[in-house]
């Protein structure tokens, strides 16, 4: 399993399946883009953004083994960069009605794509400053520092009235509704992550996750490698935050409480720390699940008038799911496996064997 996964030759041999899959996927996105209503479109867009941010988090937490909790902060930076630079100049006076926008920004308007990349880069700069002291240390310092950082960013944005409009937030951000923006970016980021993980850098990331001392002994530069992973993760998160702002059309500091980070933490734990496909699956399950389970909030779910069916019950399902995962599926849905063709074939075989009645307990789908 492990060998085939890292072997590029095996990928090439199976290339046609992947190519067919990609074509089907692109056609699917194209069809969905033309035919779904705005509600489903919004949900699908949100899924893609969650994929991007969770993947970035998994790159740092799952693949490199550095526990970072700064997602909300990096997203805020990306979101605000897009907001500040893309709001039409003529509507700025109405938005910044308490205090006019700072003169050096007031007349700058950038195309969305430029602002998006700028947002990613701004996150990278912020990540560099937190990373340079914290990534030299071992242990939980990064988690503490990034958690603090995301709160600091939120408070800073609350108080810089002339740039971010403080607590009032910014509205009238030109919105994106096409699925191509979010899914295009998500696909690019997924491909980039897959290539990265299977490269020398990726192997260095994983070696640090497994054992820092052994990795160092093998010549992996700990600080430099951790930093690379952290900065790339921050860039992706910033871009995800920018897309988030453009999807909602408005930003304010309250959106970026540290609790936002836990959404993504839930996704990567559910999907498996260290699995790209697990993260993607979990992003969809969590985002769509929240909407699909809305009927649990209504008093008459299943035609029963029980007092437990009240607003908030659908959230309980996720807590329950997380408990089940932690108790029985410690490694999450996918563990560190990927949903490759080989993996699926193997699973299929093992399930067939099980159903065939052969009770060989140590064979099968254990991972």
């Amino acid at each position, binding site marked *: 399993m492990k060998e085939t996964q890292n072997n590029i030759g095996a990928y090439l041999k199976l290339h046609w399946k992947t190519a067919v899959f990609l074509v089907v996927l692109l056609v699917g996105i194209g069809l969905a883009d033309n035919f779904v*209503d*705005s*509600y*489903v479109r*919004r*949900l699908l867009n*949100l899924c893609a953004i969650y994929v991007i941010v969770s993947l970035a988090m998994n790159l740092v937490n799952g693949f490199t083994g550095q526990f970072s909790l700064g997602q909300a902060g990096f997203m805020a930076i990306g979101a605000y960069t897009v907001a500040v630079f893309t709001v039409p100049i003529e*509507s700025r006076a*109405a*938005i910044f*009605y*308490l205090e006019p926008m700072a003169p050096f920004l007031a007349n700058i308007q950038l195309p969305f794509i430029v602002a998006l990349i700028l947002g990613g880069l701004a996150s990278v700069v912020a990540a560099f400053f937190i990373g340079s002291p914290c990534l030299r240390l071992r242990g939980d310092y990064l988690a503490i520092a990034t958690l603090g950082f995301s709160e600091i960013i939120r*408070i800073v944005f*609350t*108080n810089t009235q002339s740039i971010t409009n*403080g*607590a*009032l*937030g910014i*509205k*009238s951000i030109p*919105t994106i509704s096409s699925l191509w923006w979010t899914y295009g970016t998500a696909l690019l980021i997924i491909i980039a992550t897959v290539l990265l993980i299977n490269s020398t850098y990726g192997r260095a990331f994983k070696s640090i996750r497994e054992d820092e001392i052994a990795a160092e002994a093998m010549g992996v530069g700990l600080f430099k490698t951790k930093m690379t992973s952290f900065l790339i993760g921050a860039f992706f998160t910033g871009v995800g935050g920018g897309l*988030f702002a453009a*999807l*909602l*059309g*408005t930003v*304010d*500091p*309250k*959106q970026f409480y540290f609790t936002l980070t836990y959404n993504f933490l839930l996704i990567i734990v559910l999907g498996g720390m260290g699995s790209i496909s697990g993260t993607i699956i979990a992003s969809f399950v969590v985002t769509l*699940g*929240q*909407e*699909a*389970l*809305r*009927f*649990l*909030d*209504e008093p008459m*779910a*299943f035609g029963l008038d029980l007092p437990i069916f009240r*607003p*908030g019950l659908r*959230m309980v*399902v996720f807590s329950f*799911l997380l408990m*089940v995962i932690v*108790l*029985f*599926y410690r490694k999450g849905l996918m563990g560190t496996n990927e949903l490759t063709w080989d993996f699926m074939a193997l699973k299929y075989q093992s399930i067939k064997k099980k159903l065939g009645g052969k009770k060989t307990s140590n064979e099968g789908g254990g991972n």
Partner: protein
Amino acid sequence: MKKTLSVLLSLALVVTMAAGCSGGTTTSSEDSDVIKIGVFEPLTGANAAGGELEVEGVELANQLRPEVLGKKVELVIADNKSDKAEATTAAARLIEKDKVVAILGSWGSSLSIAAGDVVKTNQIPAVALSATNPQVTAGNDYYFRVCFLDPFQGTVMANYAYKNLNAKKVAIIQEVSNDYSVGLAKFFTDSFTKLTGDPSSIVATGNYNTGDQDFNGILTNIKAANPDVIFAPGNFTESALIIKQARALGITAPFIGGDTWETNEFITVGGADVEGAVMSTFFDDTNPLTEAGKTFVAEYKKAYPDRDNIAAVTALGYDGYMMTLDAIERAGSADPVAIRDALAATKDFEGATGMITIDENGDASKNEAIIKTVKNGIFTYMDSVTID
């Protein structure tokens, strides 16, 4: 064994999800005998308490007037989790899946602003109940509101401080992370400096964040500035703590604030120290401004006999529903665009919280606010103020 159990549990989850999907599709079938109105409120999360009070008002109004144009009105309530991303999907869901013709809500201006784009692009009218931020309706032809705005409330309190309390010097303590508080402080400053003609009549300004506990730093500065009155719009818990700590520091200046103070927690936390605190609000159950207000109070007491007082936002929820139904009746159809036009043309509608006329921005141009104070641990009616 563990494995089987976990597989079973996951299966149960998938089944419930599937049930949810199928349940959703059956309810969205078109039924021409029913007019659906969406209620979009935070029922979980940080703003849940406010959302629930508004829903109470809407439901009460629905019981009183369940039909319009000979059709039954069905309320579709969607929780937006006090979360912006969720607010936009909840609004889109009401429009696309439930096919509502109008939306009421939401508590919290930022949630309403987030939904603004959705209602605008889908051309479904929405009525904000207690969202006071001007940005909710600004530049959006499909968002209306039944409450008054931050500028009006700021002006009311500035007038009160200047005329009734003879204040010449005022200190402001604002909750900087709260758009409501920042807006109110700004409009108070504007109209107070206009009244006194002295730009330095705001002698001190203090900022704090939601959840702060210790305000001694701010209060020491304010004590040094020696203001006649302290204006502290903000969240009720923090405001009550501010007043407590100010009294402990020996500050005797009266405290005035906005409608967010009017909760039981304000008195529980503040105790004897909040006696005499003055606030502006939308509604007072002992002195309803209109006949509709009297009906509302009577019906509310019938429906909830164990409640001590009626929250202003509940009255606003009632008004939002009644105004929307009035607009549907005048439009003569359940077509969302026709309802929008009728809402925009609302003139002298008699609501429980006063006469409502919708102006060109989609705001309720109310000119009457109520001043209340805390007396013997109870919010007591003091005065109603009319400003042109």
